């Protein structure tokens, strides 16, 4: 009999392929319905400027997130998107609150429930937001608005809360990745978050491995 983990991979693959078909059908159906076929040169030119960065980032993201998000969480996250700014912090905080660890069966269940709930909530909020708040939202989030500084600081606010307990508990392990991240940004201040995560995760794993071998942690 198949294990839960094997079943998740089977379901995940089926859903991913279905999502790929659904996704590609959107521009295709737009072209068929409107009877317009944009020049291939225009599409290729547009893709040439986004693919090198985003496809490389995708590889780094798949490798960096998989130890944390579990199989169900990974399949769901990569279909619904907004991982770094939403699904990842959501899953990490859920594991922290439920007191379960990544790479365990319990961790797999909690991350999947967390990411599925977040995806449903996101779908509802975006849909409601688009329908209801279209006239007022630009005023709330506009650069001059009183609320703008709050929305600009979502990520530090999110990750400060998630990291707090971990940084106190594992302060020795935390020094290397934070230093590596800051140092990288000193030379490449505009580096996108995907490649930066790759740098901090790899340096954190290397640092922790050396500390473990030398009995520092």
């Amino acid at each position: 009999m198949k294990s839960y983990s094997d079943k998740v991979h089977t379901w995940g693959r089926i859903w991913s392929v279905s999502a790929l078909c659904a996704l590609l059908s959107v521009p295709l159906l737009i072209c068929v319905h409107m009877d317009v076929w944009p020049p291939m040169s225009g599409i290729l030119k547009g893709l040439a400027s986004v693919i090198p960065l985003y496809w490389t980032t995708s590889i780094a993201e798949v490798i960096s997130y998989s130890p944390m998000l579990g199989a169900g969480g990974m399949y769901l996250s990569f279909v619904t998107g907004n991982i770094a700014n939403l699904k990842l912090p959501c899953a990490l905080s859920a594991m922290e609150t439920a007191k379960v660890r990544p790479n365990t069966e319990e961790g797999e269940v909690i991350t999947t429930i967390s990411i599925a709930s977040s995806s449903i909530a996101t779908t509802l909020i975006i849909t409601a937001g688009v329908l209801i708040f279209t006239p007022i939202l630009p005023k709330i989030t506009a650069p001059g608005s009183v609320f703008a500084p709050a929305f600009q600081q979502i990520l530090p606010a999110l990750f400060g809360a998630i990291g707090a307990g971990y940084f106190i508990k594992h302060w020795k392990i935390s020094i290397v990745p934070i230093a590596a991240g800051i140092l990288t940004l000193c030379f490449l201040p505009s580096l996108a978050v995907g490649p930066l995560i790759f740098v901090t995760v790899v340096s954190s794993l290397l640092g922790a491995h050396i500390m473990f071998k030398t009995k520092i942690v």
Partner: protein
Amino acid sequence: MDFKESTFIYILALGIVVFVAGQSMFFLLKAWKQGKKLGITSGTMRNTITQSAIFTIAPAISIVATVITLAYSLGIVLPWLRMLVIGNITYEATAAEAALNAMGGNLSQPVEDKSVFAAAAWVMTIGSAFPLILVPILLKKIQKKIGQAVQMNQKWADVMSAAAFIGLISAFISRAVAGAGDEAVIGDGAGVLSLSALLVSIGLMLILQTVCNKFKVKWLEPFAMPLSMLGAMGAAMLLAQILPESIAFLEWRG
């Protein structure tokens, strides 16, 4: 009727909404059933749902803001639809701008040509579709390797698992301390506001965790993180109002 917001485009978008919600419900029910088998209490799983939904509110509002920003040029439906499947705030705006530039337009003017609109849809879709090929191929292999490493040495695996977790969070902490923002936008790079939000959020979280543990306030636990996050966002808003502009919006990396 504007072709970018025709009934047909709305039907396409609703189809995607149903697909995403269906997939999430499917995995949620399967995980719930498995959780029961593993002995995880319904209370813990319900808490996870509540906490995750609350956590989602603020980031989701900023996603709606991105949808609306892109809507000026592409109409409301295509950006909405793109944000529901593999959507990513930074990617979608960049991809849309790249596609429009390639066709001689840009995001600061409404798209009037159907062909340009279709080109933007293709670029935004193909550019983001790669993970849907990568994950089904790579994930099982990566997780098998992780599983083998965990079995070989549990203590080492615990340290490495904490390290991976901390590594991920460190990227965002580093950006709040030393990352540059968009030069045209005030307040989005590392500076007084980002550092304040980070420190307030850490401080609030530690206080709330202490309250939960010391006074055994169980119900507060799932709210500790969302409250710390919202508190830090509120602090950033307050500081922007009370500090002189030259200090509040100081960004050391631009």
